[in-house]
């Protein structure tokens, strides 16, 4: 059985019904354990003091904010190339989740920046491109909402998603391109020297896992909702015409 079969809404719903409880449960476990571990049972950093604890929220959410856009990109491409409705709807369902992730990253980053950099916000390349990515999220959602015909909306938002990817890439790699901002570089890289200490690393990994799982749970659930909206719409339309 090929993977594409799950592009059928009914199959998709059936599969997601089965997977979702596990996803919800696992993500809750990871998040709770990770956050509690990080908040209560890790020492303060010798330079940053207790503010390192923000890392357990900031890094996973920033990571997911960008990855959510890449996931939308993939879904949009699938829609453009193979025209599977479910993938278009999945992209639509992911956008608000991405916005929330972006907001969390922005807020926690700003709150962290005040003690660390002495300012809430700086116009550094990574931060700026991240903010523009946020705007793209808003535009993407607004465009979906504004267009009546769902296929047209899917086409147009896909194009927008392609354009916005530039800023997603920039907010991940801008640090490498310019190297002049305030924001730190990739501290999670495999390069041991730059890596954060193990005490912080393990709960951080758990939190990242929690955010990833939560993201997938939300997207799966919301895609189901979108499918039901379309089904309701199709039924109503049929009803009106037969009458």
């Amino acid at each position, binding site marked *: 059985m090929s993977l594409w079969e799950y592009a059928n809404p009914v199959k998709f719903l059936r599969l997601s019904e089965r997977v979702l409880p596990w996803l919800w449960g696992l993500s809750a476990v990871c998040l709770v354990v990770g956050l509690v571990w990080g908040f209560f049972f890790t020492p*303060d950093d010798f330079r940053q003091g207790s503010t390192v604890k923000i890392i357990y*929220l900031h890094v996973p959410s920033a990571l997911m904010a960008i990855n959510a856009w890449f996931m939308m990109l993939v879904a949009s491409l699938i829609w453009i190339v193979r025209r599977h409705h479910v993938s278009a709807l999945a992209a639509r369902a992911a956008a*608000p989740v991405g916005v929330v992730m972006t907001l969390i990253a922005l807020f926690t980053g700003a*709150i962290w920046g005040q003690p660390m950099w002495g300012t809430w916000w700086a116009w550094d390349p990574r931060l700026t491109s991240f903010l523009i990515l946020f705007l793209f999220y808003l535009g993407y959602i607004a465009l979906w909402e504004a267009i009546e015909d769902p296929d047209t909306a899917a086409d147009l938002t896909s194009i927008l998603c392609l354009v916005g990817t530039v800023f997603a890439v920039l907010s991940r790699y801008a640090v490498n391109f310019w190297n002049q901002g305030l924001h730190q570089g990739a501290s999670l890289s495999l390069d041991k020297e730059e890596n954060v200490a193990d005490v912080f690393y393990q709960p951080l990994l758990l939190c990242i896992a929690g955010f990833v799982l939560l993201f997938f749970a*939300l997207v799966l*659930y919301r895609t189901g*909702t979108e499918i*039901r909206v379309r089904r309701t719409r199709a039924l109503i339309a049929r009803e009106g015409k037969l009458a």
Partner: protein
Amino acid sequence: MPDLGKYADAVLSAYAVSIVLLVAIVGLSLWRGARVRADMRAVEERTRRDG
């Protein structure tokens, strides 16, 4: 409760904001999902009845 020192405000508010936002998106998704499901049931009922 661990001692957060002089950064207590920052750390606590970061956790508060994040948790509120996470709960909000989960809650909104579930709420809308339930409503849409109910709507769909109603329409399905109607179409089945009307043939």
